[in-house]
């Protein structure tokens, strides 16, 4: 069955490998360019005392070299889902559509075994392809150089999660293929479902997968942290209590620092002690990166397993 599945899917896999190979080469070229611009900028030690006047032009050439990196984030966001759905949607739907399931199910292999072997081949192909591409994505977004890989757009295109997204999308496509029995419809329904699941998880679940860290006594969080919230809170409180939000006390501080309006005349430190407030940053620090990657990959792999179970039930109960 492994051979047979490979034989059925190989042309699709070949096309995908070639298409993504072309993308990877383009990304690699852009990444090289960006990396050398970053190296040139770093070598100038800008921001340190006595930095040279070349900083401005070096910085601007880095920014122009990295102007595609936001597009890279989009590619990194879309590709795992698209590859998963493109591989998953036809894997069962095509057999049901052409009636070849009646050929496969009447050989000496049980229906469940047939299904699991097919899905294993497809899942492996989706995961391996995205796994191979992820280093290119994460290099291209430049997150590794800048060290802010935990910050959302970069986080999504690096580490383990792209493979987990691909596995989830693959199982989503396969399951929808069993439900609607048509590759095209399975794909068309799968895209918005996948995007919605990704968006909701990213917006409402990810930040709480690992307990965030609250820090006070700093004014600006380092860029390698993912800042969730920040603001003035009463002393002794590291998160907003009842009746206040992260923003509630900002107004009191600004009334205190510039009582007459216009320029600030009173120091922030003075106002903080006067009002018994402190500035708190709630964040996922950079060292939570792998913890968060594992947790988020776990969410998507668990969702993929749930879809697998549903697919097995649907195929076992299949009524012609």
């Amino acid at each position, binding site marked *: *069955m492994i*051979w*047979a599945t490979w*034989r*059925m899917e190989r*042309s699709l896999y070949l096309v995908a490998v070639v298409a993504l190979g072309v993308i990877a080469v383009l990304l690699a070229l852009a990444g090289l360019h960006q990396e050398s611009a970053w190296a040139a900028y770093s070598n100038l030690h800008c921001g340190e005392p006595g930095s040279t006047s070349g900083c401005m032009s070096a910085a601007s050439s880095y920014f122009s070299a990295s102007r595609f990196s936001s597009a890279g984030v989009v590619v990194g966001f879309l590709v795992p889902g698209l590859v998963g759905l493109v591989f998953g949607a036809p894997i069962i739907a095509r057999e049901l559509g*052409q*009636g*070849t*399931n*009646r*050929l*496969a*199910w*009447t*050989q*000496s*292999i*049980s*229906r469940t075994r047939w299904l699991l072997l097919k899905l294993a081949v497809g899942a492996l192909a989706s995961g391996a392809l995205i796994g191979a591409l992820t280093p290119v994505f994460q290099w291209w977004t430049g997150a590794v150089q800048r060290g802010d890989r935990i910050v959302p757009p970069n986080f999504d295109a690096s580490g383990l999660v792209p493979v987990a997204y691909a596995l989830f999308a693959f199982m989503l496509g396969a399951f929808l293929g069993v439900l609607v029995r048509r590759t095209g419809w399975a794909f068309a329904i799968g895209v918005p479902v996948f995007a919605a699941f990704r968006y909701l998880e990213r917006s409402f679940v990810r930040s709480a997968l690992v307990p965030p860290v609250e820090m006070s006594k700093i004014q600006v969080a380092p860029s390698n942290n993912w800042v969730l919230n920040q603001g003035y809170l009463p002393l002794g409180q590291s998160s907003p209590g009842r009746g206040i939000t992260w923003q509630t006390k900002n107004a009191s501080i600004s009334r205190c620092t510039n009582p007459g309006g216009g320029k600030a005349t009173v120091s922030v430190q003075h106002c903080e002690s006067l009002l018994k407030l402190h500035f708190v940053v709630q964040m996922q620090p950079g060292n939570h990166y792998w913890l968060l990657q594992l947790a988020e990959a776990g969410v998507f792999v668990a969702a993929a397993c749930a879809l697998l179970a549903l697919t097995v039930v649907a195929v076992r*109960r*299949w*009524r*012609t």
Partner: protein
Amino acid sequence: MSEAPALETIGLGKRYGHTWGLRDCSFDIPTGRIAALVGPNGSGKSTLLRVAVGVARPTTGHVRVFGRTPEEVLHRVGYLDQERPLYRSFKVGEMLRFGEKLNPLWDAAAARLYLGELKISLGARVGNLSVGQQAQVALTICLAKRPDLLLLDEPVAALDPLARESVMQVLLRAVVQDGTTVLLSSHVIADLATVCDYLIILSASRVSLADDLAYVLASHHLLVGARDTSAPTGTEVIAATHTGRQTNLLVRVTEPIDDAGWRVEEPTLEEIVIAYLRRAEAGGESSAHQPLLPKGSEQEQASR
């Protein structure tokens, strides 16, 4: 081997939406028989075969193959679907490899030999073969599995008379050599009489008759007599036709006919089958409350 029949159905029914594709179906096929499943289009032949191999799940009743569920004995059953599904992008040789990988008892030599006899090249792409050749490839895959029970849905439908003859020869050879039980559906009754020794008539989703073919032939008579003579005792009239002053009855007899008013003739198999189908179509006793399915509706539903 156990005494269980090769195929046994008990109150088998299959419903598609509001219409029954198969209803109250109960019969046995003893091992070693070549059974013919006859009936008009849409009478439930394909549905019955699909349920028997476990591809379709019955709505009511049970099916037992060698005393087990179809899923438990998949490796002992060869099934030829009505639509001959094959992987069209595969080469013929790859189709055989598919069969070899999925069947422990696969007879690779026999498969190659059979395709060689039919002059079908292993390097040809399945999608480029003629419909008849595709049917032969599909049948080869069934046979190379070395099954104990062959379920064949219209095995000779797309074949020319010569290929028809050779398929029937292959089937006979399998039965003689391996003791394979065969259930084949067809609406070409002439083909069946020479090969089959068991007859199942399916009409309007119900079984009208399931019995040994020799017994069926021996127990049915064509009676010719004067018009409006009442049928002799001990007979069940299956069909009656009237011409001028004469009445022809096709009857099933339960005791010897001793009535000088009738001339007794032996009907052909085709006449018997048609008599049963006519009776069912006219709303005869076995399907009194069964609305007739439109022709072809069962095939369409089964293929979805």
